[in-house]
């Protein structure tokens, strides 16, 4: 629940300006910017993401540090699973979303 995942904003959705594509170590997912509306984040900005929402704007150096912290905590796999799991992108079969992980 409390993982803070650093990512870089690639683009803000022109139709829904509260949504942005964020790059987390090469994985791109949509995250919600509503909680950062006072900071006006834009492409190139680094943010910390909690449960699919960008919560704070940070520097690139701090983003790298946060990645290192996640690695040291042994949480990188969980963090990447979380990022991949954000379902705001179009999924093949959206009605089944959330079932996949539980099947193993």
């Amino acid at each position, binding site marked *: *629940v*409390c993982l*803070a995942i650093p990512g870089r904003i690639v683009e803000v959705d022109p139709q829904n300006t509260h949504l942005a594509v964020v790059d987390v*170590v090469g994985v791109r997912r949509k995250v*919600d910017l*509503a*909680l*950062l*509306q*006072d900071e006006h984040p834009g492409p190139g900005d680094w943010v*910390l993401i*909690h*449960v*699919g*929402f960008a*919560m*704070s704007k*940070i*520097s690139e150096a*701090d*983003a*790298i*540090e946060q*990645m*290192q*912290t*996640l*690695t*040291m*905590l*042994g949480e*990188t796999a969980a963090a990447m*699973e*979380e*990022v991949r*799991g*954000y*379902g*705001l992108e179009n999924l093949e079969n*959206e*009605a089944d*979303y*959330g*079932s996949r*992980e*539980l099947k193993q």
Partner: protein
Amino acid sequence: MKFVDEFRAPELIAKAGEEIRKLADPARHYRIMEVCGGHTHAIYRFGLKDLLPSNVELIHGPGCPVCVLPMGRIDDGLSLAAEPNFIFAAFGDMMRVPGTHGSPLEYKARGMDVRIVYSPADALKLARNNPDKHVMFFAIGFETTAPSTAVTLMRAKAEGLRNFSVFCNHVTVIPAIRAILDSPDMRLDGFVGPGHVSTVIGCRPYDWIAQDEGKPVVVSGFEPLDILQSIVMLLRQLRDGEAKVENQYKRVVPWEGNRAALRAMGEVFELRPYFEWRGLGFISQSALKIRSSYAEWDSEQRFAVPGVRVTDPKAAQCGEVLKGVLKPEQCKLFGRECTPEQPVGALMVSSEGSCAAYYNYEHRKPVTIENAAAR
């Protein structure tokens, strides 16, 4: 950017350890509580205890949302999952938490529609994509996740999406700290304040701990160096007889918090008169409920919820461990009946729980001549 697998600045870590040994008065015993479960996990994972002198003791606080959720709430949430055309959605952390009749994962195995989501926004999307079903998001977490649930509810209302609701278990950190300070068997010298909760609430809500209770608070980051620096800052205040709130995690935590997040929480939530915490009992004004203006999207206002109360198994001493009165390994069930694979108590379920952290990083350490005596 890529992941790297090494400690940042090992020489600084050694220095901080040295500074702590210098600051700690050998005639005193220091009890410092790290409130946040993320810090507990980091302390065990990095073996930070080994860097501290024996008179600087870290007490693990209540900041693991999965751990403090009473079993009755899980039972209540799962009782709705049995309704036809109902989807129970929750974060992955919840899936293995035992209820009286099994965990959400076991309910899934019995044919109920249980889904993992990684964001409340995804639960809302499930509702959009399944208009013939009701999607209930079982929300947990402190102020770090509560604003995201709030924004999701604002969207549901704006869209008029009627097949979505939230079963709200959000809790707030300040009343839990107050309950711990009020508890007669607790003696604490200071607090390592939660990092990510403070990005939302800022540092002001801790003022009373310094001013009225005379205990220093240092809001801390999660790296080994952050945590050690925070302990240095606390010990300096204690040496100088000071009690103030300091922010070690300035690079992420603004003193005033995140105003947009606080606005969203204020729009959607109000304080419950009281809420039960596992191990700590009922604490007044310690949790969030959904305002009546959002009643349509509140599972508890919309459906008949049984309101189950379950007492924790007597043999499990989760409460004592949660309050720092007992160490995890002093519980009678620790490592025998209660393990991360077969958890009895909630502190063993989440990696942020002190029992799971202790089990994974201390209990499994190979026994050497140096540590054998300590066992």
